[in-house]
């Protein structure tokens, strides 16, 4: 990459571009230009500030889009904040009352948290396992077959979450959906049917299918990219040593692309913990069925339907802290110490 700063200083088109060294950087300007000389920062200061200057636009964007809303949510979570506060602009600071109310609420421990955590566990394992299997399949296919399968996989990825959810709701329509007809035809479900949206476990089973279907293409494509970087010799050597397919996968593939698995697992965990649309849009998922809310939907319902913005924000903060803790935990166990640096 040509360093823009060096190029500009050189001022001569086609002049050799060099990374600014501690001593050399000022020299081309002095040699190539006869205009008025501006005072220059010392080389060391410039070297120290150059990365930050280049990072500044990105950092500014992150600060505005990420840190500002985050700070605002934390600030809201220590207030008793309702619709009238929004309009009047008055705020009632109540310290950690929202958190106290939240943590002593049975609903958190018996419904929202288990729903969120168990669902995320199932969905992450499902997504990563299924995605990896698809990647292994793709890796063995010929070029044309791989392109064809990859194309189909990408369609699942490209489908917006909302449309995808409605398709799954239709497939599982309680009275008239294909699944109902199939189950009734083979005699598993009686003529009176069964409302899987009404029960927590079956509700989340449908949601998990939806989320895994939407999430596995990312894992498959990423893991496939990792698989393609594994030197062929490693597998050949293992094969000569008499290793079976499972042993080669466990002892060659997994250790070699461990960082890839770390990335897809962490990202899937984050996505599946904060899943919202796939739950909210399902029948009963927007609050009518109290047993099926997860932390994300609960936070939304508390904030916007019940207009307890403070309490809703506290739930959101709790969710963020949990994700942070899980991510750090993952990073620590999956990477060895030197890999972290």
């Amino acid at each position, binding site marked *: 990459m040509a360093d823009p700063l060096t190029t500009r200083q050189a001022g001569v088109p086609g002049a050799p571009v060099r990374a600014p060294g501690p001593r050399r950087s000022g020299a081309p300007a002095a040699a190539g230009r006869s205009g008025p000389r501006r005072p220059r920062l010392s080389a060391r200061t410039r070297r120290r500030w150059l990365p930050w200057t280049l990072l500044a636009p990105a950092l500014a964007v992150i600060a505005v889009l990420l840190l500002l809303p985050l700070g605002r949510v934390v600030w809201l979570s220590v207030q008793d904040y309702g*619709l009238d506060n*929004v309009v009047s*602009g008055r705020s009632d600071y109540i310290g950690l009352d929202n958190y106290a109310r939240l943590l002593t609420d049975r609903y958190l421990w018996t419904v929202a948290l288990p729903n969120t955590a168990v669902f995320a566990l199932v969905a992450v394992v499902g997504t990563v396992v299924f995605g990896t299997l698809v990647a292994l399949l793709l890796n063995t296919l010929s070029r044309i077959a791989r392109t064809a399968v990859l194309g189909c996989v990408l369609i699942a990825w490209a489908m917006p979450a909302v449309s995808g959810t409605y398709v799954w709701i239709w497939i599982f329509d*309680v009275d*008239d959906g294909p699944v109902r007809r199939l189950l009734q035809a083979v005699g598993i479900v009686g003529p*009176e049917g069964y409302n899987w949206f009404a029960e927590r476990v079956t509700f989340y089973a449908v949601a998990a299918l939806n989320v895994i279907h939407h999430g596995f293409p990312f894992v498959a494509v990423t893991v496939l990219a990792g698989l393609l970087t594994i030197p062929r010799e490693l597998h050949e050597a293992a094969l000569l040593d008499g290793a079976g397919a499972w042993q080669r996968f466990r002892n060659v593939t997994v250790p070699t692309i461990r960082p890839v698995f770390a990335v897809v697992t962490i990202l899937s965990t984050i996505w599946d913990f904060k899943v919202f649309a796939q739950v909210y849009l399902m029948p009963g998922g927007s609050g009518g*069925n109290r047993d099926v809310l997860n932390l994300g939907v609960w936070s939304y*319902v508390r904030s916007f*339907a*019940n207009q307890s913005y403070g309490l809703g924000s506290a739930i959101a903060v709790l969710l963020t802290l949990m994700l942070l803790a899980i991510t750090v935990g993952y990073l620590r166990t999956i990477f060895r110490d030197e890999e972290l640096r």
Partner: protein
Amino acid sequence: MARTCARRPRAAAAAAALALLAAACGGGGGDGEGQTLDVWIMEGTHPDATAYFDDIGERFREQTGAEVDVEFVPWADAHDKFTTAIAGNTMPDVAEVGTTWTTEFAGAGALADLSDHVGSTDAYVPGLTEAGTFDGGLYGVPWYAGVRAVIYRTDVFEDLGLEEPTTWEELRETAITVSEERDGMTAFPVPGDAVYQALPFVWGNGADIASSSDGRWSSGLDSAQAREGLSFYTGLALEDGVSSTGAGTWKETDLQDNFISGDVAMMIGGSWTPAAILEANPDLEGDIGAFPIPGPDGGYSPSFLGGSHLSVFNAAEDPDLAWSYVETVTNDDNARRWSEATTYFPGKRKQLEPYTASDDPLVRPFAEQMSEAGRGLPATENFGKVQGDMVLEAMLQDILNEEATVGEATARAAEEVEGILNEGS
């Protein structure tokens, strides 16, 4: 919350700059020249709402010079969208507000008091002005109203030799007959995610959702009458089998969709729905009728008298211009055209008269229900939270999904209603 406050002057400054620019470039015309009114209208009421509002917008522009930008909002998302807009200060200038939300938004200080513009409210339907009144001020101008009654398939009733039921027991027997004789059809769905279908069975048996005395609210949902009514209603699904399993999580829109596709024989539906049903499925023309919701032993069961106000938001840049738009939409000519297309009843008394005297089989039963047994929700700004929290939906679904008995579910709902309504008092 300095940010919201700071934003207003900035927005005002931008508006002023735009206005100056417009004046410099154009000049002349009405006093609304160069302005744009943002208007939110609920989606699905008028079969061809876009053309209707384009027409009104055109006339309004000729009259005042202001552009009107109408956005259509689905009912199901509207409450969230309003509260989000209030929170983010992205409110429209004028909006159609459901009559049950007006006091809530007024209580939050988001709406403008229109008393001075309206003057005497005698011209309007009384139930609707009550719902728009908060702290002595009028925050919603009655625009239109509707009421739910039973909509049914006349062809099915004729085939099976059935009469319109006049008591709850007859309603049950009729539904059972349809259910036995028509295999692919749901006789009378009991939707779990829809409250207005269930309320007639609470009110009809003489119970209340909540009533206030001495400033405290108490809920009648756990009374013997309410429990009896709800047992009857949910029993239609759980014992008599005249509903479907999936209906346990249906919203009102699911109910209507299934009626449109011809899978439902009877449903409690709004006076505005026959037009939409025929629009979506013209084959049903001549095959649908309506009757008022019967009382337990004859008479009527009250049904929710719902409708819409037009409100001006506090954030409106030019409140007078916004008010003149409200006047335009509710004038006699536009109200008549609106009612003809939507089969909603107009919000002014004089405009309502022709309907109570109508002999149209899809108008008279509703007009009868509206004049004889229309009912409002508890008039408190906190009732919006009961709705937002879906207390009644949760109660219904718990019963229909057999996670709680009628006794358990009503006790919990009553406790929650009282908790929310008495909050902060």
